[in-house]
């Protein structure tokens, strides 16, 4: 299709505006993280600092037990990921491929959980975990997210698209259900699984609310909570240090996203082979 020149220009301008809106906070964060504290306050704001203060990152890192926070974040995010895969894959397989009593009722129940806001259930869950003595532990951060209704829903859709003949072929090859699931279904659902994993990882890496509620000491605190605490330094907020902390927070996600991008796109275009 041919587009006229004015339309093209309009299109490009529109795109530039979109990019600016999305990229500006990000660029502002990086820029601030490299300024002196004084420079963060000047007006009109400066986009490029006179001098790049890389020491901000070291100050941020050293202003608390950030290695601990970082490790906690990794353990919690990866822990949730592993637990979710363990629970979501078999559940999705069963919902996609088995016929059993109350299947639709059970599946509806799973779906309903997606509609309940987290704020509504955080108190009972908190009390529950408190009874089990899991407050201020990493388990308390992992277990409430050990499964995902959205994950079950999405993976079920993918599993449903696998041609029935493949499963029949596997059954004739004397394969167990577990093996069908792991050797045929899961490899075929790889793009979906990667997307789910990524989505999950980002959500829980960035999660602030639950770790804030659940943790009282630095032993179980995660990065977002730790970084938020950078604000509570004496006498005003050191924006440059805070932003340096934020950059540290997003770098792992950027790296992962960079490598997984290809798969995310594929997740929405995968059609399978006849």
């Amino acid at each position, binding site marked *: 299709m041919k587009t006229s020149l004015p339309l093209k220009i309009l299109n490009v301008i529109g795109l530039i505006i979109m990019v600016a809106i999305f990229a500006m906070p990000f660029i502002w964060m990086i820029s601030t993280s490299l300024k002196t504290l004084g420079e963060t306050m000047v007006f009109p704001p400066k986009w490029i600092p006179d001098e790049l203060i890389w020491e901000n990152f070291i100050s941020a890192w050293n202003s608390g037990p950030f290695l601990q926070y970082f490790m906690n974040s990794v353990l919690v995010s990866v822990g949730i990921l592993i637990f979710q895969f363990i629970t979501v894959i078999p559940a999705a397989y069963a919902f996609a491929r088995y016929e059993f009593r109350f299947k639709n009722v059970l599946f509806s129940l799973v779906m309903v959980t997606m509609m309940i806001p987290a704020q509504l259930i955080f108190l009972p869950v908190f009390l529950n975990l408190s009874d089990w003595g899991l407050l201020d532990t990493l388990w308390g951060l992992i277990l409430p997210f050990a499964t995902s209704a959205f994950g079950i829903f999405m993976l079920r859709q993918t599993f449903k698209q696998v*041609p029935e*003949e*493949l499963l*029949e*072929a*596997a*059954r*004739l*090859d*004397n*394969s*167990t259900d577990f*093996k069908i699931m792991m*050797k*045929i279904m899961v*490899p*075929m659902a*790889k793009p979906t699984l990667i997307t789910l994993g990524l989505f999950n990882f980002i959500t829980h890496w960035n999660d602030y609310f639950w770790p804030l509620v659940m943790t009282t000491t630095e032993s179980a605190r995660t990065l977002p909570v730790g970084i938020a605490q950078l604000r509570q330094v004496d006498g005003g907020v050191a924006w440059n240090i805070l932003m340096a902390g934020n950059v540290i927070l997003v770098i792992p996600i950027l790296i992962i996203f960079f490598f997984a991008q290809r798969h995310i796109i594929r997740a929405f275009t995968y059609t*399978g*082979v*006849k």
Partner: protein
Amino acid sequence: MAKIQLKNVSKAYGNNKKVIEDMNLDIQDGSFTVLVGPSGCGKSTTLRIIAGLEDVSAGEIWIGDQLVNDVAPGKRGISMVFQNYALYPTMSVRGNIEFGLENMKIPKAERKKMVEEIAEIVDLTEYLDKKPQNLSGGQRQRVALARAMVKKPDVFIFDEPLSNLDAKLRGQMRTELIQLHKRLGTTFIYVTHDQVEAMSMGDEIVILDKGHIMQQAAPMEVYHNPANQFVANFIGTPSMNILSKSMVEEKTGTITDERISYVGFRPEHAAMQVEKLAASGINLSCEIITMETLGSETLYLVNSDAGQFQVKSFQAPLVETKKVDITIPMDKLYYFDTQGNRVFVEDIPFQTPAREVRGEVLV
């Protein structure tokens, strides 16, 4: 190797609609049996019941000396080749062939040897580490075949395996499958809706319609001796011409056998000549409506007082001619009753002798 028996097998889906009703089927050990019939006749269901992919509502399935109703598909000693090949897309060719062996707990070294042997046979050695999506249709077909063969099953099952191939490759695979059957001597069960495939490949044909077996016999027997009108119609291209009793009687005189209500004949048995002829049989003067030249033969659709029918001729096509005389020899006629079942007669069941009939017609 094993023979297969279905005893009083019925299959109904949820809403009580019976796909297969009280079927008794014997498939001989080492035979190449083709199940053929129009869509929805239950041939694929029958196949899937044998493979164990469908449960039966009633009846027994025997493979060899074993009642297999409750035996899992993987433990029936069956290999199946699917219409769409059903290759595991995320595994290499090697992985595809090896998967069944892995599940049979065959040691790795032995597996490797078996896979390589089979790859040699089907000429896939250089493709062993490729993924199925990088192969052509014919190659995928051979992978599916290799995957089935490597398990050394008692029974091979084919569910319309050639329908996704182009005409030339299909012909080639047909010959290869026949050779394969000769070499292995294993029982082959083959489902197709294509009667040419059925005729050319099987040593036994089972013709199904609406979940019932219409006839089970050798290909030529089915062709020359159809048990009923359905089989007569289904087997043969073009299918058998069927004329109603009353139309024929106008030409031949009363049919003496009361059971007969339809008379049929094969298009190639009708002799066509421009000149009037002196053969014994039903003579009809006809008008050619359409003509299809197929090279070695020509198909005519003709109109006569007895109705429209088709004629196959191996003579040079009659391009200019419009009117022809056609003779159908008496001994090439088939008779059917009102239900379409074959009526076997000792003599020619016409009141007037054939000679006089001809005289009448020629007036």
